[in-house]
């Protein structure tokens, strides 16, 4: 038993962290709220160049051949900066799914959109490929052949689309049990990736808040010297620290093919969702009115957290899966 990342994993994380610090500062997220795509300009290309977009593809398919234990740290970093890109859908869910089913996936893959999580598809308008579960058939569809209706997310950088397609559109890549199993695995990767992003987001909100309350003065002292604020933020730290190991453990289980890996993913996602929601709530309260304004960056992280907490299954639905395995038995 050894619960620690190796140097390669840490190095990759640090490299991604550095890249994102340069290419995805809060202004980038803010711009994505109102630009035509909802996406960053530079970050996606830089991540593709670094190999991150194709990281989960095997080496012989042009990828980095990374497992969940490697990419979970990368995803955490994308959460930390609220990266407005389909990194979960493309790098973690879509590309490995299509590759595993024998489809040709370019490396780096083009942007992939999915209709595997909720009823709306993220970045479907700028995706080259849309993966849809249609009855018991998994289809690959060219988004330009589908009718996309823009929805509006509270996180304006999340460009969601309702999708209407002609019957039998696109190419069937798998059916029946094969499609079902592949989609179940893909959804677990999506849930784990979202959990990792939520950890990053929660840490970011906590760090931002610690910084703010340390400099903001009221009644002649920093507001962060108030015990009530200290205790709220200590609770956030507890929530993060005790969600994080479940996320890493679920990553290990996915890589190891642990028969309980789906349950481990659900433990991770439920705790990460709750931790991020708590972080958002207390971060806003500790900021006070300034946090309630558009000009403060906090809301960019907070709204992403609200959305991701409910993407790829919310905390309750994942606890329900744990209960089915552990409690109902």
């Amino acid at each position, binding site marked *: 038993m050894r619960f620690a990342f190796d140097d390669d994993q840490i190095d990759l994380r640090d490299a991604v962290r550095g890249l994102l610090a340069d290419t995805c500062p809060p202004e980038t997220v803010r711009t994505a709220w109102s630009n035509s795509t909802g996406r960053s300009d530079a970050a996606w290309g830089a991540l593709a160049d670094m190999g991150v977009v194709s990281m989960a593809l095997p080496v012989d398919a042009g990828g980095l051949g990374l497992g969940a234990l490697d990419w979970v740290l990368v995803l955490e970093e994308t959460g930390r900066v609220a990266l407005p890109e389909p990194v979960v859908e493309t790098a973690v869910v879509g590309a490995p799914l299509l590759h595993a089913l024998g489809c040709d996936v370019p490396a780096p893959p083009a942007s992939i959109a999915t209709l595997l*999580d909720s009823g709306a598809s993220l970045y479907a308008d700028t995706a080259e490929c849309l993966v849809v579960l249609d009855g018991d058939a998994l289809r690959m569809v060219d988004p330009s052949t589908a009718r996309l*209706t823009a929805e509006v997310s509270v996180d304006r950088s999340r460009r969601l689309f309702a999708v209407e397609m002609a019957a039998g559109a696109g190419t069937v890549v798998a059916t029946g049990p094969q499609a079902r199993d592949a989609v179940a695995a893909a959804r677990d990767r999506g849930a784990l990736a979202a959990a990792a992003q939520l950890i990053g987001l929660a840490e970011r909100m906590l760090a931002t808040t610690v910084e703010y309350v340390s400099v903001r003065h009221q009644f002649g002292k920093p507001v962060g010297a108030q015990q009530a604020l200290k205790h709220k933020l200590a609770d956030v730290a507890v929530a993060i620290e005790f969600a994080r190991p479940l996320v890493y453990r679920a990553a290990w289980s996915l890589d190891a093919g642990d028969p309980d890996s789906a349950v481990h993913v659900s433990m991770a996602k439920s705790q990460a969702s709750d931790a991020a929601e708590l972080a958002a709530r207390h971060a806003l309260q500790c900021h*006070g009115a300034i946090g309630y304004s558009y000009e403060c960056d906090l809301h960019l992280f907070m709204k992403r957290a609200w959305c991701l907490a409910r993407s790829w299954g919310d905390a309750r639905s994942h606890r329900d899966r744990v209960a089915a395995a552990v409690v109902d038995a």
Partner: protein
Amino acid sequence: MDLTFTPDEQAFRDEVRTWLSENAPSEPLPSGDTADGFALHLEWERKLFDARWSVVSWPREYGGREATLMEWLIFEEEYWLAGAPNRVTQNGIFLLAPTVFEFGTAEQQDRILPRMAAAEELWCQGWSEPDAGSDLAAIKSRAERDDDAGGWRIYGQKTWTTRGAFCDKLFGLFRTDPDAERHRGMTYLLVDLDAEGVTVRGVDRLDGDEGFAEVFFDGAFVPDADVLGGVNQGWSVAMSTTGSERGLTLRSPGRFMATAHRLVDLHRRCREEAAPDLRDAVARAWIQAEAYRWYTFATVTRMVDGHQPGAESSLNKIFWSELDVDMHRTALDLLGSGAELDEGAEGATDAGLWMKGYQFALSGPIYAGTNEIQRNIAAERVLGLPRK
């Protein structure tokens, strides 16, 4: 104890309900905290005024009906249950007006109140400053005496001024005695936002509306006639207003009962797919909205008996603000992945109003004195715990 409504109260309720059913917009108006929505809300306010529903508890001469406090609560219940629009006049009617009734001269009352009731003059509040949020006594905006002109020249900045960009007038505190200590030497002034030397800059809000403003003062003139309650008396004058804000008038139970009704309705539509334990959360929301309603009836009865609510209004503010967050959070939990869909999304349940409402609810524990401050007040002044 008699927990039935009197025939008069029932008749009042019937009259309100009938009028609203015939006049309230059938579809929700766009947010009153955007420019377009504000104009539509003004129309609605004037319709309310014309039918004498804008300020039911005020004297008839100012446009009211001299309704009792209990009738006012009934009005509020019916108003929110009918889904009628948010009141963009609220900061004037609920925050400034009680102060004008208590501290204003007859001239001020006659000049200010009818125009406020008619929504001809829209008021915003100017309490907070960049370095004076919870710590209101840290206000730095100042007023300098201009004897020649018979008034004051004001300098400084106010912030978080709700709907400031759409209002005509601002009420707030300004430091008139620079040598006095924190709570002293401030004066309550009524400021014309069109006056020379006033600049209003809209600030977008968390929920995407342009609901806030920053207001800058650079020598704008305020005549003596617009001093409310005496020079250097501003703190005690203002405190009576913040009491109103926390207490009864700003958040009547009708709002939360209406939200609880909508939550039950939402649950009915979502329960097949939602987690079964949310039923318990919905029942709890309903019970707590009822608790707030009956607590308020008890408070109003005490007020009718001559007791003024004191520090216990802090308990009130903690309760309704957290209830409001909890109810909206439960709604988002019912909506699951669809919760993120906002106003304007085709796929959004109830036109995205739950996410919008959640964001607004999150301001509850912050504004009008953060809940941390309220808990301090409750602990020290209601329970008598030691300050230091």
